[in-house]
C-alpha cells in the first residue's frame, strides 16, 4: 500500500498574494521565488508528516499542465484560454506551428524542483498534450515527452490524462504506441483524472504499456475494476474538486474492498486529479487524511 499526490498542488494564500502583487508591479520576482521556496518546503513537510511514499514538488510554478513544456518546445506554443473540464480554472490550450514539434531543452529546476527523497513527477500524457494540435500523440511522445522523461530523475512519472475518459469513441488502443514510445526510463503511470473510466477499463486500459493505471473513484464504480488487476492501481480516493473532507476510515475501508472484492494487489491511494481545485488549506487537510488512510490500511492488514 502506497500513497502520494501527483499533479498541481494549490498555492498558499501567501503565494497567491505574492503572484498577484508581481502581476501588479508591487513586488519583485525574487520575493515571489522566496515564497515559492517556502511553499515547497511546507508542502514537502506535510507530505513527510502524512507518511507519503513518494514526494512531489506540487508543480508550484506550473501555470497549467502544459505551459512549461510548450515554452520549452519548438513548434508548440500557447493557444486560446480554455476551460479545464468542468471547472472554473482555465489553461492555454497547446497549439502547434509545425507538424513535428520537438522539445528544445529539458525542464529545469523551476519546474522539476530538487526534493529530499524518492520522488514522483507529473507530466501530461501524450494524448492530452497533442489534443487539438493536429499533431499525432506518437509524435508528441517521441519528440517532446520522451526527451523530457530522459532528463527526469524520478521513481515514478505520472502521465496525467484529463481528456481521454471523456472523449467520445476514444479507445485505449490509441494510446498504445505513444505510451510504448515512452518506455525504457522511469516507471510510468497513466492517470485518467476526473472521469468515469468504465468504458476505458472495458476496452483494455489495464493492458496499456505502463506500470500503473490511475482511476477516479468518484466517477468510476468499484465493480468496473477488472478482477485481479495486474498493475499498480492509483486509486483516486480523494476528491480534488470537492471541499468536503474525506473520512480516513472510509478511504481505508474502500482500499480493503479493492483488495478483497477486486483482488487488487498493488495499490496506491491518490487524489482523483490536481488538488489545485481546492484551496491550499483544504488540500493540506485532504493530504493528511490520505496519509492517515494509508496508515490505517497498512495497520489493519498487519
Amino acid at each position: 500500500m502506497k500513497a502520494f499526490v501527483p499533479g498541481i498542488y494549490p498555492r498558499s494564500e501567501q503565494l497567491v498574494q505574492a503572484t498577484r502583487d508581481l502581476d501588479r508591479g508591487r513586488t519583485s520576482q525574487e520575493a515571489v521565488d522566496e515564497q515559492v521556496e517556502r511553499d515547497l518546503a511546507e508542502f514537502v513537510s506535510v507530505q513527510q508528516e502524512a507518511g507519503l511514499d513518494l514526494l512531489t514538488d506540487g508543480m508550484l510554478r506550473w501555470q497549467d499542465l502544459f505551459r512549461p513544456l510548450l515554452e520549452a518546445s519548438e513548434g508548440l506554443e500557447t493557444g486560446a484560454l480554455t476551460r479545464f473540464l468542468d471547472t472554473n480554472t482555465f489553461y492555454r490550450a497547446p497549439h502547434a506551428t509545425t507538424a513535428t514539434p520537438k522539445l528544445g531543452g529539458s525542464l529545469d529546476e523551476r519546474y522539476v524542483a530538487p526534493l529530499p527523497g524518492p520522488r514522483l513527477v507529473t507530466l501530461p500524457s501524450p494524448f492530452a498534450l497533442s489534443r487539438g494540435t493536429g499533431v499525432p500523440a506518437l509524435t508528441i511522445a517521441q519528440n517532446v515527452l520522451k526527451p523530457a522523461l530522459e532528463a527526469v530523475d524520478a521513481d515514478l512519472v505520472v502521465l496525467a490524462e484529463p481528456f481521454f475518459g471523456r472523449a467520445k469513441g476514444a479507445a485505449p488502443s490509441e494510446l498504445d504506441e505513444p505510451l510504448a514510445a515512452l518506455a525504457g526510463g522511469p516507471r510510468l503511470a497513466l492517470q485518467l483524472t476526473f472521469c468515469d473510466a468504465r468504458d476505458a477499463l472495458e476496452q483494455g486500459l489495464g493492458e496499456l504499456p505502463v506500470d500503473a493505471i490511475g482511476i477516479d473513484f468518484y466517477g468510476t464504480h468499484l465493480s468496473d475494476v477488472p478482477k485481479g488487476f495486474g498493475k499498480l492501481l492509483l486509486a483516486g480516493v480523494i476528491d480534488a474538486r470537492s471541499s468536503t473532507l474525506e473520512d480516513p476510515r472510509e478511504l481505508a475501508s474502500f482500499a480493503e474492498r479493492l483488495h478483497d472484492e477486486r483482488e487488487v494487489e498493488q495499490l496506491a491511494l491518490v487524489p482523483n486529479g490536481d488538488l489545485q481545485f481546492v484551496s491550499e488549506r483544504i488540500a493540506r487537510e485532504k493530504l493528511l487524511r490520505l496519509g492517515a488512510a494509508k496508515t490505517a490500511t497498512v495497520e489493519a492488514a498487519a
Partner: protein
Amino acid sequence: MKLLTHEIGSLAKPPWLVKTSAGTPLDASDVEHARTWGTKLGVDDYEELVETLERGNPDKAELGRWASRYGLRLLESAGIEVVYDGEQQRTEMYAWAVEHSDGFAPRGTVRSFDNKYYSKSAVTAEPSLREPYHNDEFTFLQSVANHDLKIPVTGAYTIAVWSYDEHFAPQSGRIGAGHGRSEELAARREFANDLARNVIRPNLESLIELGAKWIQIDEPGASTEADELDIFVESFNESVEGLDCFFSTHLCFSDYDLFFPAIEQMHGCKQFCVGFANYDTRELGTSGAKRPGYEVISKFRDLPYEPILGLGVLDIHTDFVESPELVRDRILYATEVFGDPERIHVCPDCGLRTRSWEVAYEKLRNMVEGTKLAEEALATAGATT
C-alpha cells in the same frame, strides 16, 4: 446606422482602493494615480480625493464611491454609450454575491488561470438573500452617471457551478459508488433554482423598483457542464420571468456551440453579449476565413426570439490593443452574417479587470473608433445599394 456600444462589467481597481482595502499604506504614486487619471478622465472634484489620500487614513466606503466615479468616467470618456462603474465597490462578481447571501461558507482561494485567482465558497444550507446587494451601488451611480446604465448581476447558475456543494449533493458513500450523473444533476438543479428564486430574483425586483432599465445577468460559468445547459436556462427563466426590464446575458470563454439548442428556451433574454475576439485572428478582413472566432454567430442569429448580439470585439486576456480597423472588420463581418445591424451591439469580450487602466482605456477608445468606422462603412454601403 447607429451601433450601440456598451461595457461588460469589471475594470481593475485603482491602487489607492486596493491598498486601502488591504490595509497597506498609500504612497506618493497612489496620490499621483488619482491626480493623473482624475485629470485625464475629467472626474468632477477629483481634487477632493487627492486631498483625502494626502491626508491619509481614508474611509474605505468613501474611496469605493470615488473608484466608482473613476470607473464610470473611464468608460464614458472612452465614448462607451451604456456604462457602469467597473464593479469598483464589489469584491468580485462571485464573492460579492455569496458574501451578501446566507447559506454559504468561504473555502479559500482557487486559481482561475495563471496568476489570477478567485475566492470560492461552499453552499452549506439552503441559500437566501440577506439583503439586496446592488441597491446602494446602483442608487449612487444613478446620481453621478452621464450615460445610460446597465447593471451586471451574477447569475444563479454561475454561482451554483462556482460553489462547492456541501448541502444539496450526497456527502458520504460516494467513493467507488459510481453515483449516477442523474444524482449530481438533480442536486445542481435544486441549488440553481433555489438561488434563482431566493437570491437573484429578489435582487432584480429591487433594482427594477429603483429604476433599472437594463440588467445583464452574468453567466460566465453557463457552459461549464455540457449536460447542465437546461439547468442554466431554467434558472435564468426562473430569475426573470414576468419582470419588466431589458434582460441580457453575458457568456464568455466557452464552446458556444454547446449552447444550442438549449438557449432556444430563453425567451426572456433580449440580448446575448458574448466573447469572440479571444478565438479570432488579428488580421484585417471581413470574410469568414479572416474571422474564425465569429463563425458561431449565425446560431445566435437564428434563435427564434431574435435577440440582439452583443459582439465581443476586444480580447481581454492580452495587452494587445485592437486597432479601430480590426474592430471595424469584426463588426462588418457580424452585420453581414446577421443581415440586420440593429441586432448588433458592440462590447469587449468580458470585463477588463485583468488589464491596466491604460490598456483598457486604449482598447475601449479603439472599440468606439472602430464602431464609428463600421457605421461609416455601413452607411456608405447603404448609400450605394
